[in-house]
């Protein structure tokens, strides 16, 4: 006997899923902006001449890259409130975990990009009178960012996938709403198929764009 797929209950519950999708996008945007900008800051600290800043950055990067992001989210959700007298929402815990994790990963991407610019350019810019910050902003970063753009879009895709982990602390996002719909209608197969398809439809264009970017950069650098 073959199973009869029935997608009707999902269509009836489209509002619940749409509500979840909004939560997913909201979490994604916050974590994308925070993660990628904090990452740049950490990368610059990592290159700082001050030992303390440098070691703080290294410690941060190693800590967040060498522990699972789900452990980080749960730590912020269950453990942090013990230390600080703060009420932490599922949204807050997810933002902290995913943004800091992404900051650590993107810091290494920025660092690779900055390092790939020959030292001669720094020296030349300094020689004509720019300050270190000016060199970074006008000369080094524009080139470095262009080179690491594919790696950064890849990170963006990873962040989007990571947002599903917020369902573990019951933040209302697409997967969490899917669980709800599946448990009300006893149709997990259809629900998780639809959710997987939705993620794929949203992410695959980004994946293709990353491939295209990589190819273009490879051609222009050659």
């Amino acid at each position, binding site marked *: 006997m073959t199973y009869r797929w029935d997608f009707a209950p999902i269509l009836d519950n489209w509002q619940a899923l749409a509500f979840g999708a909004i939560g997913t996008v909201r979490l994604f945007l916050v974590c994308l902006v925070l993660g990628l900008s904090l990452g740049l800051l950490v990368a610059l600290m990592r290159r700082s001449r001050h030992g303390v800043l440098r070691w703080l950055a290294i410690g941060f990067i190693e800590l967040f890259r*060498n522990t699972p992001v789900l452990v980080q989210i749960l*730590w912020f959700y269950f*453990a942090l409130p013990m230390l600080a007298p703060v009420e932490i929402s599922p949204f807050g815990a997810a933002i902290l975990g995913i943004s800091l994790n992404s900051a650590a990963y993107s810091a290494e991407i920025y660092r690779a990009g900055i390092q790939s610019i020959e030292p001669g350019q720094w020296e030349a810019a300094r020689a004509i009178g720019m300050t270190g910050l000016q060199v970074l902003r006008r000369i080094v970063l524009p080139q470095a960012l262009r080179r690491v753009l594919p790696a950064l879009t890849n990170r963006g895709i990873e962040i989007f996938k990571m947002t599903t982990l917020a369902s573990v602390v019951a933040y209302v996002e697409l997967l969490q709403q899917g669980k709800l719909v599946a448990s009300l209608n006893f149709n997990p*197969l259809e629900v998780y198929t639809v959710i997987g398809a939705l993620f794929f439809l949203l992410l695959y264009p980004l994946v293709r764009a990353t491939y295209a970017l990589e190819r273009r950069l490879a051609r222009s650098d050659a």
Partner: protein
Amino acid sequence: MYRWDFSPVIANGDLLLAGLANTLALTGVALAGGIPVGLGLALARLSGSRFLSAPAGVVIEVFRATPPLVQLFWFYFGLPIVLKVEMTPYLAAALTFTIQSGAFFAEIFRAGIVSVDRGQREAARAIGMTEAQAMRRIVLPQAVKRMFPAMMERSIELMKTTTLVATVSYADLLYQANELAQKTFRPLEVFTAAALMYLVSISLVSAIAALVERRMAMSGEMAR
């Protein structure tokens, strides 16, 4: 000021260690499955035949562009409905992570195989090797050495991804920590200890990987 007290964690240390053992076991199974699956997918994708490369491409793209947690739920809650099989958390996790990491390994294998100069394959064919022999004797040994850093990175990612099984109640390190935190009312100490256990084991693996990479670089086999 909060007073840290790790004694409940230490008293229940065996629970966390049992969880770590399960985490490592699951990672090992997914690696043992994922590497051959990845090689198969890569060879299928690179084969001239469209009947092989198209399905391989679909598997690779779908598993790379969807969240692993959705995949896990699909295999755990969805698949048993079609297949009418009893699904255990362990089986669902092993399946998901084998195929998911296989999709990522496939792209690593593909990049490695493509990086070996075409001329070598042609030369091997010219001296009478079959396509399969050329792949096994000439191309793959070189490709695997070049792929090693990417493979190690992916394996470490896999180990971190296995924490997702805690959501379907497989007793991995994170699940055990969660249980213990509820039992002892010491979430701060328990989750900190669990995070440290992950940190130590993952740092250890990356340190060993870095060591092997340096060795390979020294012997000139990673050149290029």
